[in-house]
Structures are given as structure tokens and as C-alpha cells.
């Protein structure tokens, strides 16, 4: 892993993934993957189930350790950092299943993700001041949960939980936002609202989204990366990959 790390060069990209490989007991879930994400780019990753999309995000955010290869975020190597250090560097991640703090209220969920007081004593003496409160309110407004601030998070609907998790990322204000199937399991109206929300929040940062809904993909993507069996099958604009015969065969055809 370190050999590859050392050879990776500096770039102008926000994210440079090079030769990234992870093997689970010999099974290469991600196999020598390279791609680059630009400043303010919205990159969508598509591909059949089991293609390794979620695993790529796991590797970037430090949840899974790479077997080899390099992930550079603003030329900072991430593969050797711990999860919370990667968060501090400016990478935020939303999980495929909504994962929020169910025993806390919506307010507390958001407050917990506010990027201040992240060490033990900082947290112990954290002050809920006007700045924190107004930021929480602002984000709650964006994610349509401003009337739910006092609700316990496990009482929210599935869609609301997804929004809350997006809100928890927004309040972190990451430079790179990674979303794993953000509209999965949502009703049609919720989907619409989420698409709207995503359009607003993706304006001033780089984003990687995993998504299946091709219409949604075509709407938001700058670039699309198609994955299959841990490798990149195709890359380009949504229009281009839609017409790619290989992509049609393994993914869009059925």
C-alpha cells in the first residue's frame, strides 16, 4: 500500500483515486480503480448491485482499509488516516441505510455534527451558543425538519431520517460530500424533495453520489462512472454512458 502511496503524484483534483484495490479473503471487491473528481464536480457512480460502489466510499472515508492504492484528497493521502481525521480533512459521508442517532433529538443529532468541540474536553465544555443554534436551525430548515427539532430521531419517517443524515453532513460543511443511494426507499414526493435538496446543497462543493435512478442521474451528474465487478466499465457524461453497449449489457439492459 505504501509503495503505491509514494508514487502517487500531486494533482489539481479534489479527489484523486489511483490503483485502489481491496481484497476480502482473496475476493477483489474493488480492483485497481482510478478516477479523479474535480472541484465542484458532481460525480455519480452507478452499477449493478455488488459492483463495489459502497466499498469505494468505505475506502475513501477510512471505514475499510485499502489493500493497495492511494486516495488523495487535496493531495493529502487518506488511506493512512483514521476515520475522524478524514472527516476533519473535509470529507463527509452518508451511509446507504440511514444512520442517525436514534436516542437523540433531531436538534442534538445536528448539533453533534457541528464541527467544533470534537475532542474530549472540547465536547465536555461545548457551549450551545447562538452560532450553533442558528446553524442548526438553518440546516433544519433546508432539510424540512425545522418543526421536528425536538422529536426523538427514531420517531422520524424513513425519508425524514435520510434527510436528517444529509443535514448532519451539511452541518459538517465538507468539501467532498459522498452520498450512498440518498433517495432509496423514498416515496415519489420525498424523492422530488430530496432531488431539490441535493441540487441546492451540491452547488458549492464536490459530490460523489451513488444512485440507480437514471433519470435522476442524468439530471444532476457532471460525470458518470459505471462500475462492474470492482472495476470501471465506462466513464463520461450521462448521455455517453447510457449509449455504451457494455453498460447496457451489464446494467441498463434489464
Amino acid at each position, binding site marked *: 500500500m505504501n509503495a503505491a502511496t509514494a508514487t502517487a503524484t500531486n494533482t489539481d483534483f479534489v479527489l484523486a483515486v489511483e490503483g485502489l484495490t481491496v481484497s476480502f479473503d482473496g475476493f477483489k471487491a474493488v480492483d485497481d480503480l482510478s478516477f479523479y473528481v474535480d472541484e465542484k464536480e458532481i460525480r455519480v457512480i452507478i452499477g449493478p448491485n455488488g459492483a463495489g460502489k459502497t466499498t469505494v466510499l468505505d475506502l475513501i*472515508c477510512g*471505514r475499510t482499509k485499502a489493500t493497495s492504492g492511494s486516495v488523495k484528497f487535496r493531495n493529502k493521502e487518506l488511506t493512512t488516516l*483514521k*476515520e*475522524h481525521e478524514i*472527516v*476533519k480533512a473535509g470529507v*463527509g*459521508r452518508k*451511509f446507504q441505510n440511514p*444512520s*442517525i*442517532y*436514534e*436516542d*437523540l*433529538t433531531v*436538534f*442534538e443529532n445536528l*448539533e*453533534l*455534527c457541528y*464541527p467544533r*468541540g*470534537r*475532542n*474530549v474536553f472540547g*465536547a*465536555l*465544555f*461545548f*457551549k*450551545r*451558543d*447562538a452560532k450553533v*443554534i442558528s446553524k*442548526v436551525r438553518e440546516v433544519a430548515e433546508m432539510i424540512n425538519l425545522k418543526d421536528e*427539532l*425536538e422529536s426523538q430521531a427514531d420517531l422520524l419517517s424513513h425519508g425524514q431520517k435520510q434527510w436528517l443524515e444529509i443535514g*448532519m453532513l451539511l452541518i*459538517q460543511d465538507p468539501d467532498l460530500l459522498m452520498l450512498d443511494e440518498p433517495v432509496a426507499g423514498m416515496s415519489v414526493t420525498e424523492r422530488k424533495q430530496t432531488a431539490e435538496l441535493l441540487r441546492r446543497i451540491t452547488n458549492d462543493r464536490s459530490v460523489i453520489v451513488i444512485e440507480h435512478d437514471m433519470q435522476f442521474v442524468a439530471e444532476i451528474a457532471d460525470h458518470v462512472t459505471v462500475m462492474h465487478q470492482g472495476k470501471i466499465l465506462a466513464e463520461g457524461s450521462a448521455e455517453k454512458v447510457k449509449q455504451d453497449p457494455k453498460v447496457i449489457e451489464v446494467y441498463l439492459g434489464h
Partner: protein
Amino acid sequence: MSNFSLKNMMTRQDVLGFFVLAVLLLVIMPLSMDIIRLTQFGKYLSFAFVAVGLVLCWGYGGILSLGQGVFYGLGGYALAMFLKLEASSPENTAIQSTPGIPDFMDWNRITELPWFWEPFNSFTFSLLAILIVPTIFAYFIGFAMFKRRVGGVYFAIITQAISSILTILIIGQQGYTGGVNGITDLRTLLGWNIRSDYASYVFYFIGVALLFVCLFVAQFITKSKLGRILVAMRGQEDRVRFSGYDVANFKIFVFCVGAAFAAVGGAMFTLQEKFMSPSFVGIVPSIEMVIFCAVGGRMSILGAVYGAILVNVAKTYFGESFPELWLFAMGLLFIGVVVAFPDGLAGVYQKYCAPTVDKFLDKAPLFKRYSGDSSYSGSSSSHEPVNAS
């Protein structure tokens, strides 16, 4: 600092709870009991320290330690060592073959005070050691385990093993530790007779005061963002990392706080019972401590105090008549509580008493202006910016 005002730290139910406990411990108990019973009650309270620490570790942080007896014991031994040295002055021990060392050392043909006993000649050192030795030990255990992401059942088993090892060590090294009998026959503290009734009263009230210090520290922690991080960690440890926190550090911290509380409790035990022995270090007492916490309600620091008192009262009256049955009774009690009342006494109070008490408080003039409410997160007004003036 206005953020740390009473109102942010305690709901009015909390204030009432602290007040009732204070009246109970400072007024009712001392007035209704003779000094022998009061001292016994003080012994029960020494276990409440451990239970309060377990509320933080286990109830909030989800860290189940089955080895709190280790810290209780270390705190108790630190003080017992000082008191023992004072009781072993050359004049008091003139009949020994080596006067000036504790009697059990002499019995084991040790002729010189071991090096690690030397510093316990100093009262200041001993007081610091009560807190610092167990806390540092907890820090090392926590660091070794939590940084490697050992948690849950594995952690519980390891703490249990540690308490077992320490017990064996103490019993095996009787020349240095007093062995299975422990350190006994403690007499004076800085020349002051600790066996007088007057001293017993003083120790009881010191114990209550220290318990309230721990309760306030615990209350502060649970109401801080750190308390909410612990709750978040308990359910979604992985997720907390991705909110930017180094989970291991928070676990180490709360484990150390729990150890420090336990150590203070152990020292209070030594003061009131005038001895310390390995029977408070091992697996069984450590599990009992978890039961105190479970019975009281593992999310309630005040509940933990009542849990410790209640189980110990039951142990005294029931356990002493039927000692063989007591362990089974404890086991059943634990299972019963976990199954039927997962939130313990505090849960029962919340469900059946709190609403009535709330109604009453609404009418009470004293509480009218105190507009906190009993819900855990506080009323929406608690999100209003606090005026710094």
C-alpha cells in the same frame, strides 16, 4: 460561563431529586439511626459511587465493565495502606521481630517495608494515590482496549479477568498485601482516633459530601455534549467516527471517570469499616456493583444511589440469613430487572410518579419560575441563545 447555569444542567425534576436525596442522606438517615447503623448505611453509600460511575460507563457509554471492584479496591487499599502504616508505629509494634512494619508483614517474615509501601507514609501522597492510581490503571486498560476497538462482551470479559487476577495477586502476596484478610486493625488518622462515634459521624458526612461531588460531576457530564456523544456511541459507534470524533478517547475518558468514582467509594469504605480486603475486588463484588446500577436504572445517576442502597439493604437482611441463597437471589434479581424493568427504579419513577410530581411542581411557587421541564432534552427554550451578560 452562563451556559453552565443550573437551569441548563438540571431539569426541575433533577433539582427535586438532588434535594430529596440530600434531605434523606443529611437529615433523615442521621436522625433516625444510631451510629452503628449509620456507618453501615455509609458503607452502602460507598457502593453508590461505583454505581454512579457505571451509569456513565455502561448506561451512557455502553461500556459494560465487570471489573469495577478493581478500582474500588485500589482506592480502598491506597487509604488502608496509609492508615496501616500509621497504626504500625514502632511503639505500637514493639513486640514484633521487626517493629515499625505492618503486623502481617512480620508474620510473613518480611523484615523491611517494601519499596512500594514507602510513599504511603505520606498523607498527601496517599490521598492523591486514591484518585490517581486507579485512574491511571483505568487509562491503560482503556487505551489498550479501546484504541484496538475491543468492546462489548470482550471488554466485559477482560475486565472480569483483570479483577480476578488482582484478587489472586493480593491473596497470593500476603506478605505485601495482608492476603485474604486484607488490611485490618486501622486505628488513627493523623493521630486522631477513627474508631470513635464522633469520627464515624464525620466520615459519614464526608462520604455524603463526596457522593454529591460525584453526582454533580456526573450530572454535568450527562448534560454536556460529551454525554450525548456517549449516548450516540452506545448505539452507533461507527457512525460517531464519521461525525469527526475519536471514539476511543471518549470511552477512555468515561472509563477513567468511572474508575475514579469507584476509587473514592473504596476509600470511603476503608474509612468507615476500618479495613479493606480482596473480597471487594473480585468478580462477584464487581458483578454486584453492576446489579446496583441496573436496579437503580442504568440511565439515572440518582437511581444508581437508590439501587446501591436497596440491594445492600436486601443483602444485609436477606443475605445474612440465607447466605447460600443470596447469590441466586442476586442472579434472579438481575434477570428480573433487565427483563421487566430495563430502566430500573428510575424507569418506574419516570413512568408512574414523575407525571404526578410534575403536576405538583407546576403549582409549587418555588418551581414556577424554574421553567425547565422533565423531558431529557429540555424544552425548546433551552435552545435559545443564552445571554452572556
